[in-house]
């Protein structure tokens, strides 16, 4: 008779702001998935169940659980607290509905807080009351809820959702995944077997039969001793046996103490090992976070530097953004400078003509003497054209000289008052980087936008990386105050614990050996006494002693056989599940092997096909091993497992290869699973907000419902979790 959770809703519970109906999730049988990024309501969802079952919540900062009465103010939505006027009351609660084949139950747990002052964090500013749990029941034929008043009945209904003794197999969160079966406690599997087989009854039986056997032997010995026919040797043996039993008793006590010491040493190693492993993980993450933060800083600096330089492109000749739209002016300037030079030249020429019209012409008048004759006339100081003298300094002589020098004087052009040609030429030359880019500006702008977008994209990507790494780091727990535990201390403690374990183990083995020897001696002595005893008197007592011994032996063997059978069965189921869990993974796995350790606990090992112990497999593999054992424990139970699975699944630890198989296997064992994941979230996919793995999973028919939690990018106090149902 499976219990199926139908709805879960919240009223101002952490980031789930609003009334119950606003925040309701509807679930079905089979696999239900809620995708939520860090801070997206994932662990708060889990806290609702902690409140439901244990009246506790988990503080995500300290990773510790607190009672509702101690933590009450913090579970109320900040936004709701902010909006509540002083003197008014705000309510906060969780509501869950579940069904069995015949009935439906509704459970509400809530608190109320009256606002006395403005602060939303100061406990003195609020007066809290914890409401009584409300439980209602209805049948499914004619649904109408009726209240349940009896407190015991209420508790029963709440526990019926998932039985307390089985919650460790149904209900696990984050790092708790590794603690469902805490393989550091080697008793874990043994305890599971004990629960499944009712082993405690067998142990009681063995104890009882042993006690009866001892008493039977004592009675026999007493009669032998009191018998007149008992030989001196027999008397001696009886005395020896008495002394031996005292020694054995002492040794058994010491054995028990050393066994406990040895177990404690093993637990201590496991505890430190976990911390050590986690410390290593955190150190690795710290280095990665530092590296990513440095990259982020550089990327941000580059981005801001780029932004600061954008407007400089208006004035920089390499980009010349100011030149946009100035094609006309470019052409104008070119035309004007051409026109200017042409006009200038014409003006120059005209001025030259006006000043010296004759100089302007380079051809001599008709009948003019040639230059040789001219020279002669100048030298002779006589003009042979008009046949008259031309003495030096006379007008005639000057005229002759002028004729001769006509070409030279025509080269001396008249000047302008101001010579600005170079001014305009230089303007044109210097401005050319702008003029030649008038039609390139738009492309330059587009290119700038693209580069800016790329730089911004890089910043966003790195911000996401850092956020994700920080989130992962927060998930790694080191028990105790991890500010005080340094890696060096952890390593030192680990070394000490290893040594102590070795010492305990040696002592344990020595005492065990001694005890076994003494028990053997006792047994031999019993046999000897038994043979020596005068038959007539002690026969019935001897027979009874033997009978009780046989009964004890048989009981012990039965117990061991039942235990071993269950162990084998668990191993077999675990391997079936394990094979299914890793079937989509490319890496081939070994097999799981359960073996009894010397201290009676169960060792859980992972062996390859050659029988070699495999260690150092990926975290995903490790998680799959644990799930295999959990599922085996559930499968090995003769009746069907009738409770939902509530899991916070760290899929990144699983790896892509395991995600699909995990959901399939969960579906086979649990009639309903509600699984919260973050790694399927992709903010950039506006349509579904899912990564491509998430979208693939959405299409699987085995998935009954699929939600994505969203949050707006607002300040913390305004942060609310909303949801989008995709299936």
């Amino acid at each position, binding site marked *: 008779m499976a219990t199926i959770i139908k709805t879960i809703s919240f009223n101002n519970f952490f980031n789930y702001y609003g009334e119950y109906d606003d925040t309701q999730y509807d679930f079905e049988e089979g696999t239900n998935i809620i995708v939520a990024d860090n801070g997206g309501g994932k662990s708060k969802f889990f806290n609702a169940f902690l409140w439901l079952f244990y009246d506790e919540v988990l503080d995500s900062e300290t990773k510790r659980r607190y009672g509702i009465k101690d933590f009450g103010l913090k579970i109320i939505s900040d936004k709701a607290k902010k909006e509540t006027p002083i003197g008014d009351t705000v309510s906060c609660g969780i509501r869950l509905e579940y069904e069995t084949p015949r009935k439906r139950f509704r459970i509400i747990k809530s608190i109320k807080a009256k606002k006395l002052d403005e602060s939303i964090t100061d406990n003195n500013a609020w007066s809290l009351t914890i409401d009584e749990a409300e439980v209602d029941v209805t049948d499914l034929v004619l649904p109408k809820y009726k209240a349940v008043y009896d407190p015991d009945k209420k508790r029963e209904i709440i526990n019926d959702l998932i039985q307390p003794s089985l919650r460790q197999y149904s209900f696990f969160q984050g790092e708790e995944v590794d603690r469902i079966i805490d393989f550091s406690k080697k008793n874990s599997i043994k305890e599971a077997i004990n629960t499944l087989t009712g082993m405690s009854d067998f142990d009681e039986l063995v104890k009882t039969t042993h006690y009866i056997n001892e008493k039977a032997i004592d009675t026999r010995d007493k009669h032998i001793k009191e018998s007149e026919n008992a030989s001196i040797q027999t008397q001696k043996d009886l005395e020896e046996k008495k002394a031996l039993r005292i020694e054995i008793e002492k040794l058994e006590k010491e054995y028990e103490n050393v066994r406990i010491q040895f177990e404690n040493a093993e637990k201590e190693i496991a505890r430190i090992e976990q911390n050590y492993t986690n410390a290593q993980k955190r150190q690795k993450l710290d280095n990665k976070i530092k590296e990513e933060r440095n990259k982020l800083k550089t990327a941000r600096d580059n981005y*801001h530097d780029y*932004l*600061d330089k*954008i*407007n*400089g492109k*208006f*004035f*920089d*000749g390499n980009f*010349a*953004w*100011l*030149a*946009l*739209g*100035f094609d006309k*002016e470019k052409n*104008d*300037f070119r035309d*004007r400078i051409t026109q*200017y030079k042409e*006009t*200038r030249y014409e*003006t120059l020429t005209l001025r030259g003509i006006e000043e010296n019209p004759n100089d302007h012409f380079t051809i001599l008048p008709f009948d003019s003497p040639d230059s040789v004759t001219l020279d002669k006339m100048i030298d002779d100081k006589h003009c042979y054209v008009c046949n008259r003298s031309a003495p030096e300094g006379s007008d005639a002589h000057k005229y002759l000289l002028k004729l001769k020098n006509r070409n030279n004087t025509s080269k001396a052009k008249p000047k*302008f*008052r*101001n*010579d*600005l*040609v*170079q*001014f*305009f030429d*230089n*303007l*044109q030359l*210097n*401005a*050319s*980087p*702008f*003029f030649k880019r008038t039609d390139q500006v738009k492309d330059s*702008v587009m290119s700038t*936008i693209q580069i*800016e977008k790329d730089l911004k994209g890089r910043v966003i990507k790195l911000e996401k990386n850092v956020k994700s790494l920080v989130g992962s780091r927060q998930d790694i727990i080191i028990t105790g105050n991890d500010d005080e535990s340094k890696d060096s201390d952890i390593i030192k403690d680990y070394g000490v614990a290893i040594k102590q374990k070795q010492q305990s183990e040696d002592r344990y083995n020595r005492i065990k050996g001694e005890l076994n020897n003494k028990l053997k001696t006792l047994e031999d002595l019993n046999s000897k006494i038994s043979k020596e005893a005068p038959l007539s008197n002690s026969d019935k007592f001897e027979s009874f002693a033997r009978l009780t011994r046989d009964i004890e032996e048989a009981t012990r063997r039965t117990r061991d056989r039942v235990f071993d059978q269950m162990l084998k069965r668990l191993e077999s189921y675990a391997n079936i599940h394990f094979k299914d869990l890793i079937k989509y993974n490319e890496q081939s796995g070994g097999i799981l092997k359960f073996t009894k350790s010397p201290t009676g606990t169960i060792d859980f090992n992972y062996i390859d096909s050659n029988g070699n112990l495999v260690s150092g497999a990926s975290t995903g593999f490790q998680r799959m091993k644990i799930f295999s054992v959990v599922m085996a424990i559930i499968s090995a139970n003769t009746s069907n497992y009738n409770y939902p699975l509530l899991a916070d699944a760290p899929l990144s630890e699983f790896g892509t290869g395991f995600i699909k198989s995990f959901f399939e296997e969960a579906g086979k064992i649990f009639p309903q699973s509600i699984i919260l994941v973050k790694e399927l979230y992709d903010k950039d996919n506006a349509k579904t907000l899912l990564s491509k793995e998430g979208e693939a999973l959405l299409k699987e028919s085995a998935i009954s419902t699929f939600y994505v939690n969203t949050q707006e990018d607002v300040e913390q106090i305004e942060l609310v979790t909303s949801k989008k149902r995709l299936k």
Partner: protein
Amino acid sequence: MDSNQFREKLLIKRPRYNKRYDLLIKKLANKGTTKSEYSQFGPIYEIFIYCFMIGLKSQRRIPLPERKLTADFLEIGKWKRESPIVDFLLSIVLTKSEELSFDWNSMEDMEDNDLSQCIDKIISFIEEYANGGFQLLEELYEKPEYAESHYIFMDIYRKVVEGELE
């Protein structure tokens, strides 16, 4: 006067602007002290040149008020010396010789006084169109469509030069 002398006389001029735009200039001209939320101009002459260009393209020529309500800044010759921006600016101005009321050829024969007046006309031209540009920028700058964009100045510029402003 030769080319170099003329250029020198022009480049030592310090254009003036209306002091009522001091606040706008302060907002837009980042003197390099802090990183801005989105881009700003650098020195004052950049915003001045920008305003001149948009004033010219939108045909807003507004005379400056009386002198005491104006201020000057850096001389033209020191504006972004490594860039050809000043030559580009002057080239644009000199294509408007009709509005300047002198033509290039006539400058060749001018007396020094007259040539100085040409220079003054060039400077006034720049100042008055820049003044119009400041007015336009002040109107547009606070509009929501340009809010918080890294490309606000290019968006405005493009709309002005392409005549898309109402």
